[in-house]
């Protein structure tokens, strides 16, 4: 692999000079026959891809009224153009959100509007050629579906939904992305993105019990498949495997231990992530979510708590209710969803984010902390896009911003904010979200991290920040990988519950 270098920080963070064609290319690796077929997609690009793709587009336009509105409503005002981290980092004009969407909008006009059918050149309508299809594969995998541009769109166009539709169409003609498709296949087959089988999960959790015992002298448990436990923890499988993720898992376990909460993991459903969202495919989204329902029913749990995973929380918060019956709103004829509704304890929010759970306990005085344990850290918080712009916490608007920060302030003495133009709903993507956290897109990932790194550098220089707290497995991996390229220490990034773990007092109240 060629040596990766970080783009230079902008002196004044304004619209960068354009570099047309800077990110032209074939896009990420294409999913292979075996992976595609496992998900029910055509094995490879079908011969009649043109007709199939247009038919699929028509199908989506009929099914999702929103998509049709987004195709029609854009007036090219340009408000979104400089809001995208990938545009800022790559300078490729096709990565301006408006231009990236127009790769599809131009095709929409040609096949679905009268002016486009009659006078295509006059209205910028294009035939769906092989070149256009390749362009979709390339540029719709340079959008992390983070929806920052949507915050600035005066019409409220959800650009992520356009990307999702494009990927859905690509998959339907056998032209998917390897990273996403392979991973969804592993969830169906093994139960998590990693392909971590039950015995390996059990071995890893036993190891953690030993480690925590050694470090604290206390028997903190990491239970698996315990029937009748109160809480089922659904967390990204990276929490079992990677660093710094695993330190947050230890944090959750310590919170459960300190409050005597009976909890369990499920070896069958050991994944919070749901890449069905990333590929915009409702059937896959649902199928992945149903594993969680099955585990909850099998184990008879009363509560479902979701660990630190950004898009998983968006899926859980916004879609689990109708997809699976975690939360109210499922089809009355969906027998298992209704069964789960009856089983869950509705005194609690269903599902609950681990940050909501921990903050609630802190507010009630059920946890005590040695804040000095985090004194070596000057901490700032990076809002993850799907939590910030696709969900909430605590049952009130803005809770998703307050609650993680409240926890940090409760467990540490030094917390500061980054530039407010890059936090809360205006947060920048880490550069690896939306199904792009793959080695074949490393150049894109490094460039896409630029705006966050600029602001982090500023916070480090001016306020001495040396710890970037996040609540998303993708953010953790992406930052650990790209931060050294920007001159930061890999270990500067960690989870909110890693800080909880450092400070929580066990075995005493």
């Amino acid at each position: 692999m060629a040596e990766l270098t970080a783009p230079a920080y902008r002196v004044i963070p304004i619209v960068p000079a354009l570099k047309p064609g800077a990110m032209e290319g074939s896009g990420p690796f294409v999913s292979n026959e075996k992976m595609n077929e496992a998900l029910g997609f055509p094995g490879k690009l079908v011969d009649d891809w043109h007709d199939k793709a247009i038919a699929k587009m028509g199908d989506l336009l009929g099914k999702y009224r929103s998509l049709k509105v987004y195709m029609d409503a854009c007036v090219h005002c340009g408000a979104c153009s400089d809001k995208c981290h990938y545009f800022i980092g790559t300078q490729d004009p096709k990565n301006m959100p408006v231009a990236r969407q127009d790769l599809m909008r131009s095709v929409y006009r040609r096949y679905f509007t009268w002016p486009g059918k009659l006078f295509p050149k006059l209205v910028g309508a294009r035939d769906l050629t092989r070149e256009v299809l390749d362009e979709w594969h390339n540029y719709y995998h340079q959008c992390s579906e983070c929806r920052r541009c949507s915050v600035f769109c005066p019409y409220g166009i959800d650009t992520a939904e356009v990307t999702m539709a494009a990927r859905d169409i690509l998959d339907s003609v056998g032209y998917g992305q390897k990273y996403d498709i392979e991973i969804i296949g592993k969830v169906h087959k093994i139960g998590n993105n990693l392909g971590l089988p039950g015995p390996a999960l059990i071995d890893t959790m036993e190891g953690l019990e030993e480690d925590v015992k050694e470090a604290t002298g206390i028997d903190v448990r990491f239970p698996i498949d315990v029937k009748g436990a109160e809480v089922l923890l659904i967390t990204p499988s990276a929490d079992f495997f990677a660093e710094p993720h695993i330190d947050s898992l230890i944090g959750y376990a310590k919170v459960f231990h300190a409050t005597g909460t009976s909890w369990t993991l499920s070896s069958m459903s050991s994944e919070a992530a749901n890449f069905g969202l990333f590929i915009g495919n409702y059937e896959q989204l649902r199928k992945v979510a149903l594993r969680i329902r099955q585990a909850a029913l099998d184990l008879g749990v009363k509560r479902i708590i979701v660990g630190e995973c950004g898009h998983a929380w968006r899926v859980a918060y916004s879609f689990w209710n109708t997809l699976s019956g975690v939360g109210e709103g499922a089809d009355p004829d969906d027998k298992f969803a209704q069964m789960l509704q009856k089983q869950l304890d509705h005194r609690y929010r269903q599902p609950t984010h681990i940050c909501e759970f921990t903050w609630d306990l802190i507010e009630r005085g059920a946890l005590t902390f040695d804040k000095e344990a985090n004194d070596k850290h000057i901490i700032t918080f990076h809002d993850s896009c799907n939590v910030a712009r696709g969900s909430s916490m605590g049952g009130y608007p803005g809770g998703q911003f307050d609650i993680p920060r409240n926890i940090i302030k409760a467990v540490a003495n030094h917390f500061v904010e980054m530039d407010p133009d890059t936090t809360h709903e205006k947060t920048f993507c880490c550069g690896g979200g939306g199904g792009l956290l793959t080695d074949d897109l490393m150049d894109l990932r490094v460039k896409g991290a630029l705006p966050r790194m600029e602001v982090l550098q500023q916070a480090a220089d001016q306020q001495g920040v040396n710890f970037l707290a996040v609540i998303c497995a993708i953010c953790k991996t992406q930052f650990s990988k790209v931060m050294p390229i920007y001159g930061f220490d890999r270990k500067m990034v960690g989870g909110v519950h890693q800080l909880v773990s450092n400070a929580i007092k066990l075995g005493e109240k």
Partner: protein
Amino acid sequence: MSTIEVAGKTYETDEEGYLVNLSDWNKDVAEYIAKTENVEMTEQHWEVINFLREYFEEYQIAPAVRVLTKAIGKKLGADKGNSEYLYGLFPYGPGKQACKIAGLPKPTGCV
């Protein structure tokens, strides 16, 4: 599908250079892949590779980073049981780069 040629024999790899057939692995192939990764194999590297293969044999997956650091720490001394030591050996990250050299599938997901 790509291939590599080692000592006169041809082996199938994926786009990123991971072996397709795990049974194809041998020490020569490992040395070859290490070279393409700019990793010079030493005894310390082999300790890690051998542990990865043993673990995989039992669990059908590479060990978590923490499991690996702990095992190396037990075997080679506490000063080596940390991720810095492993990053020193496999600069692109012990998870992926060491797995590739060990002929194991690439860990996927948010890792």
